[in-house]
């Protein structure tokens, strides 16, 4: 089932005298294709959870329409939308066993959908098997680990065969190792069921690794929608470029003169079709190539060896970040005793942004 948001805006009225309204989501207008795993990505307070709640129906939009497939669900209460929701803290009923937690939504069915106890149990067992918790059916949530609780919550959301599965920060309560494991698990479950899934996260790594598509948000406004690699390689603006990627992208204050890019005095790159003026130049850590005759000069700070790669940490007076961090193959040798290090920049790993609007400025054949 595809999900369509048409000009959806959510405004929370300010509380108390003189308090201003909060625009949690502004003019959301996008489509989530059927059967995809979508990440809503952004820093805290960017409106991603609000967007999820708008889709689930727990909150009503101030204006705009929400469609599931061809059906307008804007005015439908959550129970009639056919969505499954997994909460950040799982919200498992602590007094009920795993089986009872999973069958709870089934107990709400009435009329022709009504199920017998045995049918419910059977159904719960099938779902539990899918999320691999079928050995824990008689336990209480308090007796489960965080990862297991997470799976029970997913099973509970899936048991009614929802058309759309919504996950609110599904991994934030797990430790680092479990997080890696569980995100693979979510991907697997989503693939096996084929349910359109939207999950909220502030972790770009998580979003990049498992989603089919990323929606990047900032202050209630969608910044960019695209496949993870697209969003990483070709961010729409400086915010997106900064938010995605670890280590973060290196941003320099730069200028363009005669279709050449200058960082300080160094003429670092040919940039065709870009008018003269000040720009932000952003270079991914993997965009640097060690080159004794390279045009870009930095003061060498230290070299960190990370096995497969080495990270060269240097300083440049035009850098916005405190240090310039580049990642290069460990086959390269860096002379630690030297005071300076010289780089050449890979053109497709170097991005230009307008100094004022911070929007992307394309150069060369990209245009």
């Amino acid at each position, binding site marked *: 089932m595809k999900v369509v948001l048409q000009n959806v805006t959510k405004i929370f009225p300010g509380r108390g005298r003189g308090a201003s309204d909060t625009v949690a989501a502004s003019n959301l207008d996008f489509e989530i294709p059927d059967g995809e795993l979508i990440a809503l990505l952004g820093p805290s307070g960017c409106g991603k959870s609000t967007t999820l709640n708008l889709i689930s129906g727990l909150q009503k939009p101030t204006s705009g329409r929400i469609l599931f497939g061809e059906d307008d669900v804007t005015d439908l209460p*959550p*129970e009639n939308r056919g969505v499954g*929701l997994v909460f950040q803290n799982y*919200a498992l009923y602590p007094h009920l066993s795993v089986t009872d937690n999973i069958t*709870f939504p089934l107990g709400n069915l009435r009329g022709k959908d009504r199920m017998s106890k045995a049918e419910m149990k059977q159904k719960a067992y099938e779902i539990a098997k899918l999320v691999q918790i079928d050995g824990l059916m008689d336990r209480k949530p308090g007796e489960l680990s965080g990862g297991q609780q997470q799976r029970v919550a997913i099973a509970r959301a899936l048991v009614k065969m929802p058309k759309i599965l919504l996950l609110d920060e599904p991994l934030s309560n797990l430790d680092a190792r479990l997080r890696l494991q569980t995100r693979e698990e979510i991907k697997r479950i989503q693939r096996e069921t084929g349910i359109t899934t939207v999950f909220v996260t502030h972790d770009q790594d998580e979003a990049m690794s498992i989603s089919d598509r990323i929606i990047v948000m900032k202050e209630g406004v969608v910044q960019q929608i695209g496949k993870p690699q697209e969003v990483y390689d070709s961010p729409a603006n400086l915010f997106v470029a900064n938010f995605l990627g670890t280590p973060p992208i290196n941003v320099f204050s730069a200028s363009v003169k005669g279709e050449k890019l200058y960082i300080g005095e160094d003429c670092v790159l040919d940039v065709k079709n870009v008018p003269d003026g000040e720009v932000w130049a952003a270079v991914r850590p993997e965009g640097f190539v060690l080159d004794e005759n390279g045009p870009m000069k930095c003061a060498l700070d230290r070299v960190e060896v990370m096995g497969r790669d080495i990270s060269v940490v240097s300083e440049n007076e035009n850098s916005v970040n405190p240090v310039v961090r580049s990642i290069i193959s460990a086959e390269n040798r860096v002379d630690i005793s030297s005071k300076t290090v010289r780089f050449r920049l890979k053109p497709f790993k170097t991005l230009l942004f307008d100094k004022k609007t911070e929007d992307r400025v394309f150069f060369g054949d990209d245009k």
Partner: protein
Amino acid sequence: MENKSAKGWLYLIPAILFLGAFMVYPLVDVFVYSFEEGYNSASQTFFGTGLYNYSYILHDPYFLQAVKNTFILVIVTVPLSTLIALGISYGLSSIKALRELFQTVYFLPYVTNTLAVGLVFMILFQKTPYTDGLVNLILGFFGVSPIDFIDGPYWAKMFVLCFYTVWVVLPFKILILTSALASVSDDYYNAAKVDGTRPFRIFRKITLPMISPMIFYLVITGFIGAFKAYSDAVALFGVNLNAAEMNTIVGYVYDMLYGDSGGYPSYASAAAIVLFAIVLTITCINLLISKKHVHY
């Protein structure tokens, strides 16, 4: 190791001394008194030991009346007040406007003196040669002939006592249950809402189990409190409770010690031990039942 445990005992000495002197010793003493026949508190002598004291009170119509009254009071008021408090606090937690005002209003009786409240109840219910009282006035509108609630038939007096008791214990229960309800996370309700759970099922399957420890606490303390009722009856019916047929077990104990017919610490002790046995039994039953239905 030895040194450590000696230190532990040292820290415990004050507590042991005080609890021993003011709780354990009197309890044991009461137990001993209850078996001493014909004990005279002035001369501190007694004739012999045996079960006569128990036999006496169990054949005393006043004591049997007190036991009956106490049991009616407990069985009626504990479930009733808990249910009403649950209803009111659920209502309070569902409304937004004026919630704090209502919370304050419901809590006011708690800080009001029992005897003063009793006096007010007496005035509301009493029928005198000059007036039928406010309650009878209202009942009169529905064609009910005036009833003397304070000096009249047994059931009318019992009704007033139960009504009064429920009214007095409500504020505390509402306070506890309102905060218990507030502590249930909204996420549970949202999760249930997304799954299309009807309000009654949410209440029965989520709210009630989540606040069950608090309900259980109120039931246990409610039982114990109601078994120890005394001042409520005095506030409504005066000190001569035996004559009014409204005595309670604690009232009987008091009368045996200091009442007009008093001066019998042995009988009082026996009655107190009987009360203790009853409360202990009921509390144990409560604990057993709670194991199945209370979710911590």
